Every structure is written in C-alpha cells, then in structure tokens.
C-alpha cells in the first residue's frame, strides 16, 4: 500500500500523455477493496479478479506486479518495480 502515493503521482503526471492505469485486485472479498480504493483516492479503474482468472492469464506470482503494455497492445515490461515504471513510460513516449 506504501506504493499508492507514488502510483497516484505517476498517474497524474502521465494522464495527459495517453497513459492509463488499471488496478486488478486479487482480493477474495469486494468490500475491503472498495473501501481502500475510496480511502486512498485511487481514481483509476479497478477490476476485482475474484476468480483469479486474470492472475492466471498473466501468470502473476505475487503482489504488487506491474505489466506495461504499449499503444499496440504489446508487452513492454513485466515484473517491473514501480520506481522504474516512470522511465519505462518515458522511453515509450520517445519512440
């Protein structure tokens, strides 16, 4: 959860540059997810992956895990630490 402020910053910075963020929560219950989204003010869309099907589809082995996908829908980075995500996005914008 300590990553949320940093991700919010990143989201705000890149929103105008055509960068989208989607949260995929692996929680079993919906309620704690709704509460945290509200209390921490996460404004990007959230999917509740209750049946873990997206987790399996992307072979996610732990949380948090970030995937970066380019404008054509191709995988650019996986398992990337949040602190390197900004520069990876910048690299994409230069292309």
């Amino acid at each position, binding site marked *: 959860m300590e990553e949320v402020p940093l991700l919010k910053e990143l989201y705000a910075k890149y929103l105008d540059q055509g*960068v*989208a963020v*989607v949260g995929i929560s692996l929680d079993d219950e*919906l309620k704690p997810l709704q509460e945290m989204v509200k209390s921490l003010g996460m404004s990007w869309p959230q*999917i509740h992956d209750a049946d873990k099907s997206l987790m399996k*589809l992307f072979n996610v082995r732990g949380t948090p895990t970030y995937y970066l*996908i380019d404008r054509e829908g191709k995988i650019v980075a996986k398992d990337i630490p949040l602190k390197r995500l900004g520069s990876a996005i910048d690299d994409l*914008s230069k292309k």
Partner: protein
Amino acid sequence: MMCRRTLNRLFGNAANLLGWALLLSLTALTVNAQNTPAPNKEMDRVQGMISQAKKDAEQFSKAGGKPSDANNPNLKWAADLWQYREKHPASPATVAATVEALRLLNRADHFSELYAKTDTLKPDEAAWKQVFNVLMIAASKSKDYSYLISKAEALIQTAPDREIKSQAQFNIGDAYWRTKDNDRARKAFQTVVTEYPGTSWAEDAEGNLREIEFLNLGQPAPAFERTTISGDPISLAGFKGKVLVLKFWGTY
C-alpha cells in the same frame, strides 16, 4: 486412571493420594523432559536464537559490516543453530533451526559451507520445502545454479515424498528459466505437469509454461474483457492507442 485406582485401594486416604500424585507427576515431567522436549519451550528457544541473530545482523550492518566479513554475526548464529540441529535431531524446532542456519550462511555469502551442510540433509526431511528457497536465492546471488540443479535431480530419485519431488522438479525448471535456457525450463516444467498432477507445483509449472510461450516482451498482451467495480465494461482492446499500466495488487 489405572494408577489412581490402584493408589486409592492401597492408601485410601486423600492426603497420601495427593502426595503420591505429586511425586508421580514430577517423575513424569522429568522423564518427559529427558525424552521428548516440550514443543513450545523448544520452539521458543530456537525462535529466541533466530530473533537475536536478526538483531545482531542489523547492528552489524548498521556499523558498516559487509556480508562477506569474517566477523559477520550470521556465521556465529549459523553455527549455533546447526549445533542445535545436531544435538536435538528429533526436536519440533529442528526444521526451523536447520532452515535458519542455512539461510544465515547464504546471507554471509558462505555458499560452499551452505552446500556442504545441505549435503548432509536426509531426503525425507521436512526442511527441504524451505531449503529450496534458500538454495534458489544463493544460486541467483552467485549466478551459479549448478548445485541447486544437481541437488534437485538427486532428490527426485531419493525423496520419498511426492511434494518434495515435485518441488525439486519445479526448481530445476525455474533455475533453467532464470538462466534463460527456455528449452530446458520448458521440459522441466512439462515434467512437473505430467509427473505430479494435482500438486500446487504442477499448477505453478503450467502458469510458467504459458508465460514462456505467450508472455514474452514484444508479444501481444492476452486479451481480456471484464467489468470494473464501478460497473463499467473494460477490455484490453479498449486501450488501443494508449500506454497501459496493469497493477496486480491486493488490500491484504
């Protein structure tokens, strides 16, 4: 129960009975302490060593100590915990002491000692489950997976436990995958799936096989269509033309 009834018949009087009962239970306690150590006491003792080791290591690193320094306290604690294992092979805390001793050797970068000690573990030990994690970290630190792979191959032959065998086979796949030998990784993961169906390792191996096949950098991300928690439809295709960050997370 039998004892008590016999005593009752023998002495009949309550004071005497109490005295005998006290003596008997004291004897039982002493015998118990000699044969099988009290589980909680032993766990507390080993946990105490582990937490003291952690404190010493923190202090050492704060004072500027490096992992490979000869006076790294992790070495002393590794030796003490290993000694505990050798003195108390049947204690309920032996698994914890074994795993921690090996973990501390890994933290001190003492890989050859770590491997020599690991060689003395018997194939049926419960510690293997966690020892594999230690060996994987050591291998990735030293960039040498050969010990892990050969140990895992040996265990597949000798371990009586299917869970340990499947974990060993999975670790072989993981080791090859980390060294980017995808052909061997694929083969090892495939073996986990076919030889150990129904295990958690088979499920993980299937996920890794899919990742090796479909989730490489440059490949199209797998398509999905879902509904957000606010009730809006959402799909990968809907983000075409945008850079997309997917964050898998949990509130826990």
